[in-house]
């Protein structure tokens, strides 16, 4: 019997190694081999999750003795639950006619099933011992197999995850490239549209300017008024085209930044002078608080644009006879610029919104605006290594504070 046992273990070992791929056949193969070791043997593996009444008894007994011979009554009981067997090698009645031995399949003390062997001989001590050893080995083999299945599944899951990640990465890369292309197309489109809009504007503004400057003769009062209106509207349109172009340049990071040394006082005074017709028209009192009278290193055109944007906004949103105060100051190494008005103000909930693109607040008159002015201003301030913040209360007024590092020469 021992030689049989060794041979069978070797066979099982080999068989398992060779048939690893054929997953579903594993248990059957195990049992098939076992049955080939004995003449006239019937073998079944019964897993505990399927355990019914009769085997509960068997389990109780098998804890006391390692091998347990089933009584005919018990065999009959468990044959009723046939469907739950992993396999039955021979016909049912073989179990009844032969002597049947049940051994537990367990790892340490945790039982997960039974091996049921029936032979037409009597079980002697040696056979029982051999079968007990065999069932121990089979227990480990089964668990090994199941574990390796779990590992295989986990490995596959991991591989899939890695593949998925790779795939996702590829998709993102593709999308990114596509987005870049779209962005390029968008910028090109904006450059073209800017060109195409400027061409007719050249004639509109040019001819009206030519008439307005009276180089071709005098105009009557109404004609002079209308020609001014055409010019203003043309320039307004131009302003909006420029804003759209600016934002596309800023977003494409192709905005040129050419800093030169400037007198802060002079640049601010220039901006105030240019906007004079606008604020005198509304009888707004503009005060310039010049606490810093030194040089700053900034891009002249862009710095002026910042001032124009903030000042014209302040004028736009301040009532007749209102007040605007511009403060130019330094705080240690930082340059501080404040533009304060007592206009309509901005609700707190909208403070974070106003720097976003295309934002128009409901309570204000924003006709004829692209909704890009403050977005551009913020970006231009950033270009100068500065930051812009605001304090504002509805119906009280707004203060924009610009703080620049390393701007002072």
């Amino acid at each position, binding site marked *: 019997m021992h030689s049989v046992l060794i041979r069978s273990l070797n066979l099982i070992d080999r068989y398992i190694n060779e048939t690893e791929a054929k997953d579903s056949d594993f248990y059957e193969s195990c049992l098939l081999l076992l049955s080939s070791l004995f003449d006239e043997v019937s073998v079944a593996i019964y897993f505990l999750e399927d355990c019914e009444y009769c085997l509960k008894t068997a389990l109780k007994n098998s804890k006391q003795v390692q091998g347990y011979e089933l009584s005919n009554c018990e065999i009959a009981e468990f044959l009723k639950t046939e469907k739950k067997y992993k396999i039955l090698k021979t016909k049912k009645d073989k179990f009844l006619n032969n002597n049947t031995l049940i051994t537990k399949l367990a790892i340490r003390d945790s039982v997960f099933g039974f091996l049921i062997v029936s032979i037409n001989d009597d079980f002697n001590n040696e056979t029982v011992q051999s079968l007990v050893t065999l069932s121990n080995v089979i227990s480990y083999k089964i668990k090994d197999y199941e574990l390796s299945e779990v590992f295989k599944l986990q490995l596959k899951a991991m591989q899939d995850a890695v593949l998925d990640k790779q795939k996702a990465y590829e998709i993102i890369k593709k999308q990114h490239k596509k987005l870049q292309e779209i962005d390029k197309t968008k910028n090109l489109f904006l450059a073209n549209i800017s060109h195409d809009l*400027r061409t007719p504007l050249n004639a509109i503004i040019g001819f009206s300017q030519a008439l307005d400057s009276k180089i*071709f003769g005098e105009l009557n009062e109404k004609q002079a008024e209308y020609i001014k209106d055409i010019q203003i509207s043309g320039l307004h349109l131009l302003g909006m085209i420029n804003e759209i172009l600016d934002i596309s340049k800023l977003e494409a990071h192709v905005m040129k930044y050419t800093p030169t040394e400037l007198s802060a006082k002079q640049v601010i005074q220039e901006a105030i002078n240019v906007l004079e017709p606008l604020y005198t028209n509304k009888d707004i009192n503009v005060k310039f608080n010049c606490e810093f009278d030194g040089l700053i290193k900034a891009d002249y055109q862009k710095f002026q644009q910042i001032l124009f944007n903030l000042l014209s906004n302040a004028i736009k949103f301040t009532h007749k006879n209102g007040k605007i105060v511009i403060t130019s100051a330094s705080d240690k190494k930082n340059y501080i610029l404040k533009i304060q008005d007592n206009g309509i103000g901005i609700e707190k909930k909208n403070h974070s919104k106003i720097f976003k693109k295309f934002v128009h607040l409901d309570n204000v008159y924003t006709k004829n605006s692209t909704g890009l002015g403050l977005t551009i201003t913020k970006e231009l301030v950033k270009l100068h290594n500065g930051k812009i913040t605001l304090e504002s209360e509805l119906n009280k007024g707004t203060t924009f504070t610009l703080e620049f590092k390393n701007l002072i020469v």
Partner: protein
Amino acid sequence: MKKILVTEDNELNLKLFVDILKYQNYDVDVATDGVIAYEKIKKNSYDLIILDIQLPKMDGFSMLKKLQEENFALPPVIIASACVMDVDKIRAKQFNVSAYITKPIDINLFIKTVKQTII
């Protein structure tokens, strides 16, 4: 009388330039595409060229490049273009043009620039 060539493909813009320049007592010739402009520049002698960049058949830069490769002695050039991107301005600098005016032009600035450039 100083002679100026205006290259411009837009009819109304051409009219605007021509009217203003004529009124300033210049002799004005016109070209409505790059090829005509190229031929006129080679055949006639001008004191100044007002050049558009986007022109049919041959764009302004290509024309300047061609003339430069032929070692042609160009009169002063003022570019008047609706191209406002920095790349165009940088390219213009490489051709050593006298001025770059963006459209829509301010006619006072335009007249001033012409007066300063023409010798």
